[in-house]
């Protein structure tokens, strides 16, 4: 089964979840996460906070390798069956889907944990960069220290932000 996809096209969450567990009668739990493009103006109400669009760049080759390695690492830590990670690149608009992570397991605990672990790992170790179009012009998004802290909870030093 293909575990990692980097693509410009959108993805259908329902179809991805269905195909991830199709025919696998061991599965009793499916956990997923979808990350989307926010328009921060909708949160703060300030015109200056508008996000008009977002451009996603990545390091072809390394990205796939890094995410495959993090799924292998997740298998060492959690008892789950399948995992799938989809990440979009290119030009995205507010409300667009960016990233999809889904995990199947026998019981919910392992898939919840594996899904969160994969997202925490991806945020600081997968080579993607976001550039936002704002009323002030184009701006590269800054890495967050809180994302490094999220990975530290799993005993891994991120060394990113």
């Amino acid at each position: 089964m293909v575990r990692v996809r980097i693509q410009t096209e959108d993805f259908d969450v329902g179809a991805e979840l269905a195909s991830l567990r199709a025919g696998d009668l061991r599965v009793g739990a499916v956990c997923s996460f979808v990350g989307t493009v926010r328009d921060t103006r909708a949160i703060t109400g300030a015109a200056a906070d508008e996000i008009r669009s977002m451009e996603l760049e990545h390091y072809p080759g390394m990205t796939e390798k890094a995410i495959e390695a993090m799924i292998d690492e997740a298998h060492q830590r959690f008892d789950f069956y399948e995992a799938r990670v989809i990440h979009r690149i290119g030009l995205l608009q507010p409300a667009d889907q960016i990233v999809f992570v889904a995990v199947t397991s026998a019981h919910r605990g392992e898939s919840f944990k594996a899904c969160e672990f994969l997202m925490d790992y991806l945020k600081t170790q997968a080579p993607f960069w976001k550039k936002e179009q704002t009323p002030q012009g184009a701006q590269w998004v800054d890495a967050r220290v809180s994302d490094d802290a999220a990975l530290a909870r799993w005993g891994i030093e991120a060394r990113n932000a």
Partner: protein
Amino acid sequence: MKIQLRYFASIREDLGLASESFETQAAHAGGLLAELRARGGAYAQALAEGRPVRVAINQTMARADSPLAEGAEVGLFPPVTGG
């Protein structure tokens, strides 16, 4: 030794360059950064000390003390912000 450099995101933009071949005297990633910085101009600015620069060697995240090897692909980029 000869290596292949690849630049991404803000570093690629600041250098106006996505990749180049480079002859390095450095044994480690940290030494390579110092060498590039010493070229001055856009390099000194894009890779300035205090500015966070991440390094990948042969498409694996590396550290300042990670060793370089002949023919290595070395990626230089700012902290990652995907997800």
